[in-house]
């Protein structure tokens, strides 16, 4: 039985559809109840929903053999896992945003509000800019508006929230999409099953492209 961690929410549901189309369905997952784990002995898969940022922990620690996590989460937490496939779903980008009239003149330490302190630190280290990271857990866009930070480093999907708050993208850091990840030990013992799922999903992703 292959344990698969799916990210809760809309992305997770789209990802499950992909597993289903690849032949690894689990009908009980569509039932409306409070169950946490869904299993299909016939297809040999067991799915469970977890918080998107926790998927990588479940996979790295071996509670899940496979999982689906965003590239943003992978780069922030750097889990020791294999990144087997770009599913091409949940596309967005990691970006620096600020108030439209903000100009970084390099005269003082840049205050950066973000949910992704490692991503932000690594980006600014790469361009040699001294920063003060302000770790927030939500409503990041508020920070520059209220003067808590100069800029934010956050995920931008359509840019609507930024526009409606008089903010704009100042720099793009990297594109994001959902990735199929695998535990390194599971990969040794379940290589046949993991390889089969990866190949089938790859065919579907290529078709979608």
């Amino acid at each position, binding site marked *: 039985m292959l344990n698969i961690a799916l990210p809760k929410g809309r992305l997770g549901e789209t990802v499950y559809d992909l597993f289903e189309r690849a032949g690894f369905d689990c009908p009980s997952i569509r039932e409306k109840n409070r169950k946490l784990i869904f299993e299909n002995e016939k297809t040999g898969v067991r799915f469970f929903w977890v918080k998107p940022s926790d998927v990588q922990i479940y996979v790295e620690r071996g509670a899940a053999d496979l999982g689906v996590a965003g590239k943003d989460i992978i780069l922030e937490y750097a889990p020791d896992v294999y990144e087997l496939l770009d599913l091409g779903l949940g596309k967005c980008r990691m970006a620096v945003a600020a108030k439209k009239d903000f100009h970084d003149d390099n005269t003082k330490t840049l205050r950066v509000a973000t949910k992704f302190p490692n991503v932000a630190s690594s980006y600014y280290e790469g361009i040699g800019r001294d920063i003060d990271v302000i770790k927030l857990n939500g409503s990041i866009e508020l920070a520059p508006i209220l003067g808590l930070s100069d800029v934010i480093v956050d995920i931008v999907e359509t840019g609507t929230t930024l526009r409606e708050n008089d903010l704009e993208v100042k720099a793009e850091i990297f594109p994001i999409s959902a990735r199929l990840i695998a535990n390194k030990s599971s990969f*040794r013992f379940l290589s046949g099953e993991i390889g089969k799922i990866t190949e089938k999903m790859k065919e579907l992703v290529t078709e979608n492209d």
Partner: protein
Amino acid sequence: MNDAVLTREERVVFELRDLYRRYGYRPYRMSKFEEYELYVRNKEFMVGDRVIAFNDTNGKMLALKPDVTLSIIKGGEDRPGEKQKVYYDENVYRVSKSTHRFKEIRQAGLECIGEVDLYDVYEAIVLAAESLGKIGGEYRLTVSHLGLLTEVIECVSKDPSFLEIASGCIAGKNAHDLKTACDESGVSAEGYDALCRLLSANFAPKDAPAFLSTLPDTPAAKEVGRLAALLSDSPCADKICFDFSLTGDVNYYNGFIFKGFLRGIASDVLSGGQYDGMMEKLGRTSRAVGFAIYLDLLEALDENDGGADLDVALLYDETCDPKDVAKAADAIRRAGKSCSALRAIPEKLRYKELKDMRKEGKKC
């Protein structure tokens, strides 16, 4: 002695000692402490950069060992034509990646230092595989060659930054980001294909010739071919596979590296390889190969069986004659059962049988 009283870790240590001794390795005993200076000078070879340091009574700065290999290298000397083959099981003290606090970790392993040749590398890999077999359960040993990875990447691009990016992608079996990196660096389609073959390689030693025929004929590829030919005839050949996504710290390792996995443990439990470069940087002329097994990880294999702590709980009070209590307890133990004489049953004690010697409960 009843083996059931040994923990898995203790049993494994005994079996490993016997295994290594049969291959001519000698025990290496060392102090828990090492000169702090050794780690200050060799930070680049350490797993993490923090040690527990303290002043000895004479004012000398000491540290609790975070690593065993450095001490073995420091304690040895280069003698032409000779090989020092040693094994150990020791506690090391490192910062845990998960808790960010110091942790005592029990390690067992071996080192072969001297004029190390292909046979010694083969022997270390076979011993690594047999060590995993001694632990019990299903295991796999993956082998890679750090030089092969570098040579193939340098064949497709001379850009030093590409080497780092491509190595990272191969280590993560990440073909999609490797494609992007190849496109950005102007690597040809044939170059990308060669790197993808390295990334997805996972073959048994006997299949090495077929795989290597698809790669550039580099010195490292030849070494891989020679080792694979030896391993394909070894008794554990079906448990060994070549996988070039396996990478290691290039400050520490060069040449062949290997990692061992046990079903049921989420990360590698054994790690080793050749470390000639590290020897050279430490001023030694000898070559070296070795590995360590992280024994603390084995507890993940022990299921909580919900069993009893004790066969018989023997309950007595002040009305009981101690002679009668001793006699009753001895009789139970002679019958091969564990027995504890108690005045009250501790809340968390799990026992199979209760014998009550108290006046009001004289049922036994």
